């Protein structure tokens, strides 16, 4: 029954209070689909890691229900945890152990019989095979990150949590990670990753969730969110102050600054109907002179602020495109 259901993880009314008053998670409801890549975005301290930790059993929820593949994570912890692999945010490794031993240890810890062939395959897929006898303390940060992924994959999990897997790694390794995620997705592994990098979510995620102040304020298909993120602004610094915006520009989203020296055009770069050259030709035809122009894209932080403000006005607290 459970293995055929559409959602592999169901979270209902999840709350986590640290100490007596710090609410790290506030009534989170979330369904994670089987085989999808879900990116959880949010600023530092938003509750991303707490949410992951609660699902994996590292943090005890204050209230709420979490099921994994139809099994309650507390009553059936052996089943649910054996399905999950976790790559933590911090580079936590046993410095004096070898790569081979630490990955083999993880497989055993998760209740799987020794399988050198599988460990070898995992190490080879992560370009760690030639480092298998190296002590972890001799590895670079990027290599340690790979070891953590290898440990998480050692017991053949069906769900993989990647908590900021590319934080502090170089561009090359980041792209390698994306490739690994793509390969795992092909094998049917459900992947949940947290990240600060919007381009990372754009590259590999099917859906995107945004968490802020312990609340899941948005869960959307990536493409729908991208169209929101695709909004850009063209700023024209005018040579002479403009009295008002000519009526011919009514189809354009234009704002004139109070000092009448800055004209801001907001547009959707992803829209097929959009044509910036048409706008610039029109500007020229109206003899509007400008001494400088630049474009600006809303930062992720700005988008978060907007989403938080939207969520505050929304009784359900969750914005969804579905």
């Amino acid at each position, binding site marked *: 029954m459970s293995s055929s259901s559409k959602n592999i993880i169901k979270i209902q009314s999840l709350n986590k209070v640290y100490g007596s008053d710090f609410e790290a998670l506030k009534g989170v409801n979330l369904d994670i689909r089987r085989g999808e890549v879900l990116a959880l975005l949010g600023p530092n301290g938003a509750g991303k890691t707490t949410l992951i930790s609660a699902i994996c059993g590292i943090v005890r929820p204050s209230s709420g229900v979490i099921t994994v593949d139809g099994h309650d994570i507390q009553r059936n912890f052996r089943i649910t945890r054996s399905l999950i692999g976790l790559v*933590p945010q911090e580079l936590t490794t046993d410095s004096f152990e070898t790569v081979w031993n630490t990955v083999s240890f993880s497989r055993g810890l998760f209740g799987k019989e020794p399988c050198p062939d599988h460990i070898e395959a995992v190490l080879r897929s992560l370009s760690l095979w030639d480092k298998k006898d190296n002590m972890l303390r001799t590895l670079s940060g990027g290599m340690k990150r790979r070891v953590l992924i290898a440990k998480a994959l050692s017991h053949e999990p069906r769900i993989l949590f990647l908590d900021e897997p590319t934080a502090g790694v170089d561009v090359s390794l980041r792209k390698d990670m994306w490739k690994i995620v793509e390969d795992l997705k092909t094998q049917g592994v459900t992947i949940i990753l947290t990240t600060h990098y919007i381009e990372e979510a754009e590259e590999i995620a099917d859906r995107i969730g945004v968490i802020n102040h312990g609340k899941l304020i948005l869960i959307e298909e990536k493409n729908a969110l991208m169209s929101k993120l695709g909004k850009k602004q063209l700023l024209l610094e005018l040579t002479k102050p403009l009295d008002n915006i000519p009526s011919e520009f009514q189809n354009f989203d234009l704002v004139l600054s109070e000092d009448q020296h800055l004209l801001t055009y907001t547009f959707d770069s992803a829209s097929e109907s959009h044509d910036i050259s048409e706008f610039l030709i029109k500007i020229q035809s109206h003899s509007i002179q400008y001494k400088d122009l630049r474009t600006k894209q809303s930062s992720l932080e700005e988008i978060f602020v907007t989403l938080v403000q939207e969520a505050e006005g929304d009784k359900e607290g969750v914005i969804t495109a579905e």
Partner: protein
Amino acid sequence: MNIYGVIAIFNYEMARMKRTLIQSIVAPVVTTSLYFVVFGAAIGSRIQQVEGVSYGAFIVPGLVMLSLLTNSISNASFGIYFPKFSGTVYEMLSAPISAMEVVLGYVGAAATKSVILAMIILATAGVFIELEIRHPVLMLLFVFLTATSFSLFGFILGIWADNFEKLSVVPTLLITPLVFLGGSFYSTEMLPPIWQTIALMNPVLYLVSGLRWSFYEISEVNVLVSLSCIGVFTCLCLLVIAIIFRTGYRLRA
């Protein structure tokens, strides 16, 4: 039962012993030899016999007990403290392994290491004196139970400790003095009456006494009382560990 998980923890901990062979094996052998040179040869030559046993032989159970207690506590406390310190404990907390299986792995390894050490110390003692063990099975039972109960205690200590100082303070400032004052190197009959009464409040006295009885059939207290003490202490430790895992104390937020 997650038997592979228990074996993984056990093997991982035993591997740490192999990596630190000098610290784990050679150092206790050297220390024991020094005890025999100082107490056995230098001081012992001035003490003919204690309760019918040569002084060198008399201190053997005390030395074994000193090693058992300090090593059991150190091995188990470090075993669980280090993953907490390095952050790798996340893996154990997210694994499909029960509290008792975790304890089996860590405490099993710590106790095994301590028992191996106790045997090495006995072998070292055999170089200096003629060893006599009248009840070898009982001796092994005492060694095994003491190693297990104090490894459980060390496990609790490792969870409680949030820095390295706390980790060393109990073995150094509590266990070692209790062993030295618990009749390891003397019979309490050598003490004035008032100190004999005070010595009976030292729990380690019951352990040393019981182990010594298994060697020479001489003891400060009845051997069954000694066995009962270890049993009660083991149950107390298990109870505390059960509470720790139930509440998540210093493990699970």
